[in-house]
């Protein structure tokens, strides 16, 4: 058994158009990514970065131009490889002639559940996503949030080991988001790998352990969120700075914030912090405090997507 739920090797996708002069659009460029089993993984990227293409490649809705994708060690193109996968697509369109119960029954049967298993599992899941009373109502009467929760129930029907969620809270109000997050949190310690594709950074930051950032179809950054956001800079609070010293500092640090009594100097690395302290002390200033500052995932995202491809 593979230790990775998802394993891609130089996976690439180029869309071609027969009717346009500029025929090729490279959506994904040789993406190599490993998602260990049992983790909560977030995939971030600006619009058009290739996030949805990546997820569609994993479920074989899109055919790869080159490279490979494995799900638990099996080629993702094989139908059997998708047996342990639950998927909630972005902008899903469930057939509106189904009731909630009927829709779960149909997709569960395609996932390989027999009649007895479906009969037991459907009420359980409808209860879990708070749609028990709506089981026999046609889904064209469901709100966006209800559809999203029903979609999540659909993805969980066959007790998947990998959950692929493409913008799971898209268009859902804050209460609905919380409910979805609670359902997903309920999966913790069950060994399910949760892969979330989202543009909501706070959602990924609060839920996921690992993150990857895509930029123009390439992997720009990948790692454990706690490591990536820690130690991204230092904050030095000093007093007694002359105007000349402030001017010198401005040329060498990221930012300077003046308060009524102190000056807060922000630098991006340990080396810069030491150099700033040397300047402050040699200029006669007093160091009041020094602290490592954690940047948010948003800082990291903006920094990564604005600059070039950093490192994997």
């Amino acid at each position, binding site marked *: 058994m593979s230790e990775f739920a998802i394993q891609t090797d130089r996976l690439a996708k180029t*869309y071609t158009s027969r009717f346009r002069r500029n025929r090729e659009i490279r959506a994904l460029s040789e993406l190599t990514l490993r998602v260990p089993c049992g983790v909560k993984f977030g995939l971030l990227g600006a619009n058009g970065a290739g996030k949805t293409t990546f997820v*569609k490649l994993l*479920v*074989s*809705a*899109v*055919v790869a131009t080159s490279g490979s994708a494995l799900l638990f060690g099996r080629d993702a193109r094989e*139908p*059997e*490889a*998708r*047996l342990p*996968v639950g*998927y909630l*697509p*972005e*902008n*899903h*369109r*469930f*057939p*509106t*002639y*189904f009731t909630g119960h*009927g829709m779960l029954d*149909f*997709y569960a*049967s*395609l*996932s*390989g559940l027999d009649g007895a298993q479906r009969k037991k599992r459907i009420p359980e899941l409808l209860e879990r996503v708070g749609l028990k009373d709506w089981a026999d109502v046609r889904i064209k009467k469901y709100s966006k949030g209800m559809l999203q929760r029903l979609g999540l129930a*659909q993805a969980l029907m066959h007790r998947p080991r990998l959950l*692929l969620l493409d913008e799971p809270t898209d268009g859902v109000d804050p209460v609905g988001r919380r409910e979805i997050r609670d359902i997903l949190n309920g999966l913790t310690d069950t060994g399910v790998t949760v892969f979330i594709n989202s543009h909501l950074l706070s959602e990924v930051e609060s839920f996921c352990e690992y993150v990857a950032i895509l930029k123009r179809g390439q992997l720009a950054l990948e790692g454990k969120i706690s490591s990536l956001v820690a130690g991204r800079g230092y904050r030095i609070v000093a007093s007694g700075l002359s105007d000349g010293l402030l001017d010198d500092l401005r040329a060498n640090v990221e930012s300077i914030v003046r308060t009524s009594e102190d000056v807060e100097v922000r630098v991006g690395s340990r080396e810069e912090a030491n150099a700033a302290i040397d300047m402050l002390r040699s200029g006669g200033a007093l160091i009041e405090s020094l602290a490592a500052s954690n940047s948010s995932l948003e800082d990291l995202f903006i920094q990564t997507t604005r600059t070039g491809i950093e490192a994997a």
Partner: protein
Amino acid sequence: MLIADTFQEARARWLFWGLFALSTFLIGLFLFVLNIDIVAGARATVEIGPTSRTIYDIHKFVTVAYSWVSIALYVWGTLLAVFASAGLVPVLLEPGRIALLLSKPVSRPILLTGRYLGNLSIIALNHVYLIVSIWLILGARTGIWESRFLLAIPISVFMFAVLLCVVVLIGVVFESAALSVMVTVALMLISSLLAQRDWSIRLLTSEWSRQLWLALYWVVPKVYDLSGAMRQIILYDREVDWITPVWTSAAFGLAALGSALYIFQKRDF
């Protein structure tokens, strides 16, 4: 499950009910026409003459009626079926729906074939309902039960199965119900035109154009020839060459369905 889903979708989209309602309307119309004493009038007309010929002539008259009704049902049923089926593939390929289906552990050919078979089953059911009903009405009214008339069921369903392959192919490539109808109906008309080989060969002046006409005739499904064969069998109970139109049409259908499956297998959604 995929076949049952196609039934459920056809019911929900009123296609199923619409198809059966139109068939019921046709059956009702047929019943009405027979009730205004067309049959009695016709029988009376036939019975004017030597008594020894009466039974033979009535039987012949009813058999002719059977043969023409079978042709009418063949054309009506096939056209109606094409209209009813055109949307069922494009709707399956809607973004947000197909991606979820493809994420299930089911191969793409099975998904599309399931849709095809579901669609075919709905139409077959409708054809059985329509043709058996007309047969029962004709039989009860005339007292002549011509079982050869029921050949219209397999022949009509077979021709629809061939044309449905075209509907599926156009649906997969262009995701357009309207285009599926246009192409399929055009194909029916073209194939009927191409089937007029005898006069076309006489009219065409160059050898290459005659060969082209014949080549095209052999490629397309034999909508006209098969209806002709059906009429011959019902009317005269004689041996006709039905194998050639069947196998050439089946080959066309298989090529169209094979192309649809191949394109569906390679497409991005």
